[in-house]
């Protein structure tokens, strides 16, 4: 990693109490404070969230796709290094 390259974080927002945090995207930040601040600046510009989680992307382990309905042969995992935007159950229309 270059010394001026910031690491990738995944961002989760709770839009209101009673709902769980939901993955909304990712961003780059050097440290946790910055990641939280950036998440607020980037993903809550229209007051979309009341609680923010940030997680370094490298800390997330994603299940292999063959654990769901086996649509395809199990994939070679190497190409897709970043586990971001992993499956969420909602339909795109209702995001």
């Amino acid at each position, binding site marked *: 990693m270059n010394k001026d390259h*910031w690491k990738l974080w995944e961002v989760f927002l709770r839009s209101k109490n009673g709902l769980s945090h939901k993955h909304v995207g990712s961003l780059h930040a050097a440290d946790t404070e910055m990641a939280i601040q950036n998440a607020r600046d980037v993903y809550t510009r229209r007051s979309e969230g009341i609680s923010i989680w940030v997680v370094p992307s490298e800390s997330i382990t994603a299940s292999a796709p063959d654990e769901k309905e086996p649509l395809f042969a199990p994939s070679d995992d190497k190409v897709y290094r*970043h586990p971001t935007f*992993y499956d969420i159950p909602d339909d*795109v*229309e209702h995001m």
Partner: protein
Amino acid sequence: MGTNVSLEDNFQTYVDGENKVEPKDWMPEKYRKTLIRQISQHAHSEIIGMQPEANWITRAPSLRAKLILLAKVQDEAGHGLYLYSAAETLGESREKMISDLQSGKAKYSSIFNYPTPSWADMGTIGWLVDGAAIQNQVMLTRTSYGPYARAMVKICKEESFHQRQGYEVVMKLAQGTPEQKAMAQESLNRWWWPSLMMFGPSDDESPNSAQSMKWKIKRKSNDTLRQEFVDKTVPQVEYLGLTVPDSDLKWNEARGHYDFGIINWDEFYAVIQGNGPCNKERIAHHVEAHEEGAWVREAANAFAQKQAQRKKNTGAAA
């Protein structure tokens, strides 16, 4: 289903069934490449697209207009970020995408290689350029790649204010003093044709389109989108009392669409190849900001490392 059904056929059946592809699913390498190219190009367009508008933030003629423009350009930065995020799910780092942008390997929408000498351009860009972009983006909310589709849903929600903002700026000019009306017409004259070019080459000249349609990355052809845009926009121009700078433009009753003149494709390709009025300026601006920020990014990293080390030390001591 026999075992000799290829992965690619399976993939096609899956996509044909209007199912979304997610990052860790198997996908044809070319699908992945196409997506990276398209999403990063889209992200770069948002980022480079900040420049022609940022140019007017300090000179916006009212405080309200200044705030709106600032918020709009900020949205574009946000949209660029959503899109970089979506592309990163395909294993392409932002660093790599930015270096491709700066080296000229990656493209962005050619429209942003035109200058913005007039305040009226802040209206015209919102109205026509964002309008044309929305046409494309609404289609992309149904694109087959999940992260891209989700990013587009967020972007479309936010973009709707941009086009209205643009139209409002132009409307105030068109209904203002004679000088202001002239300002609006002059700006429309410059942006009309480049806006039509935004949809890309004609279908018969667009080699990648067919495959993209088949994979449902793209859902409508360039020419279809362009026609929809013209049909939608001409009445808006008329409402303002302005004139579309195209003498061939007329309503075709039989087709139920507007006929319009021939696009200057030589200009289109020249600008794509780097010969627009602002290509060099836009990239130089991006490179300069990036280089001037290097020491800042390094400092933040160095500080983060020190902090992590300190935390470790305190943890060990406890």
